[in-house]
């Protein structure tokens, strides 16, 4: 469908000779949240790594705004509006909070807007503002989550790729994170593709649920249907 922000067509990828993804199709319309859910080893993280170019697809293609991403180096992707918060959140422990955040906007030419975005992140995540000079590894799990999200947001992305944002966090922090994603979608039109094992939290905020199983998309459906249709949930999610 024309107008999708992110499209993957017949995508295949893997590590060395080991194939992980097979024939993956997905579409994420702008201003929506898509949740990729599935068991351990279903290929969710591999999918994200392939979408952001860290892993080269062995077949198929990825379109951003209808333009093929093939040949776009990973470090150019932020310039096209894609922010990837990797597995484990990727906070650089040896750098301070401020340095981590500045790093997220260093590529931007519009320095005044970069400074504004930094201020906005400090307003959005107040605990970070009081810990500017703390090193990344001194932060709690929740603060690290804020830092990882904030560092992505200072780049003012159009598409946010999130790998397991709920991992290792208290339920309250997970709920806050999901609420924030919804707020960003509604207020700024941010598009989010998140990978989650925490199916309930993910479906609570998502517009679309993409169920993966053994490296394939088993089902892509409106999240509301996955939430409400007990038969579907039983068949694909096992609860």
């Amino acid at each position: 469908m024309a107008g999708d922000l992110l499209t993957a067509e017949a995508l295949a990828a893997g590590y060395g000779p080991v194939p992980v993804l097979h024939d993956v199709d997905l579409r994420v319309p702008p201003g929506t949240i898509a949740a990729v859910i599935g068991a351990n080893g279903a290929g969710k993280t591999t999918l994200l790594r392939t979408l952001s170019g860290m892993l080269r697809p062995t077949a198929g293609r990825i379109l951003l705004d209808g333009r093929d991403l093939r040949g776009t180096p990973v470090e150019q992707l932020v310039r096209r509006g894609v922010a990837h918060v990797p597995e484990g959140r990727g906070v650089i422990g040896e750098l301070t909070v401020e340095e981590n955040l500045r790093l997220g906007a260093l590529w931007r030419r519009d320095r005044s807007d970069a400074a504004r975005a930094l201020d906005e992140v400090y307003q959005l995540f107040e605990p970070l503002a009081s810990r500017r000079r703390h090193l990344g590894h001194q932060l709690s799990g929740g603060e690290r989550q804020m830092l990882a999200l904030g560092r992505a947001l200072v780049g003012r992305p159009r598409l946010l790729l999130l790998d397991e944002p709920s991992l290792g966090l208290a339920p309250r922090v997970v709920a806050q994170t999901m609420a924030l994603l919804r707020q960003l979608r509604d207020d700024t039109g941010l598009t989010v593709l998140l990978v989650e094992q925490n199916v309930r939290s993910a479906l609570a905020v998502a517009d679309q649920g993409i169920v993966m199983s053994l490296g394939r998309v088993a089902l892509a459906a409106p999240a509301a249907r996955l939430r409400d249709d007990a038969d579907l949930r039983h068949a694909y999610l096992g609860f």
Partner: protein
Amino acid sequence: MDRFLFLTLDGLSRGAVYAAFALALVLIWRAGRIVNFAQGAMAVAAAYVAYSVTAVTGSYWLGFGAALLAGLLLGAVVDVAVMRLVDHRSPLNPVIVALGLVLLIQAILGMVYGNEYLPARTPFSRTALTVGGTAVLSPYDLFVFATVGVVGAALVWVFTRTAIGLRMRAAAFAPEVSRLLGVNVGGMLTLGWALASGVGALAGMLVIPTELGLHPHAMDLVFVSAFTAAVLGGLDSPPGAVVGGLGVGLLLSYVSGYAGGDLIPLAVLALLLTVLLLRPGGLFAPVAARRV
């Protein structure tokens, strides 16, 4: 007492050079987890460039500038043309390649310039000034302190205060995350090599005239001393490199002053062995940070 003072000041001057050279080793170690065993040979190559430029132009300072430039370029070339092609999965590979580079560079220098010692000038007098009848520092010692101080301060400024320094640190600590944030990680590594090699060339320019002169092997013992200094301070720690360098300089000055210059290589190796046995991480080894 006068002699002790003289040896101390002389040791600090020598140590400043070791500190600079150790700093160059630390820079590359932090950027790419490689101990650059070729750094001594690279610095000598840069010093030969200075020799040629000075011979043609008659100006020490043009030669000095040319050496720094040659050092920067050589570092970048070694990274792009050699180290990047090495499979880094085994840490031994880059070490062996660096040792191979030493042989290659020294052989080329020997073929081009010959294997005799060439005279190396200093821009200032090496005769110690006397204060109240006591020989203290020479003008050249002061030049060494000033140069190493300025370069050290400049490096601190670049790494802690500038965007490019932030990129370089991020690329070293977390290459994958840095790429996701738009950092050209390969470029930062090359820049790190260039900077380190430039600092190494500077150290070579400062120390070679105080030893026997210019020779393809002129930096061999200096390299061992500076490597010991870097290990003493901890390969990960720039302040450690400076403290280690000054410490090694002092030790060697006392050894050569009180026990004889012949014992210097032995003293260096004994110190290296002691550090590796007692505190292999170095004096300034950071407490293992929690991985995040």
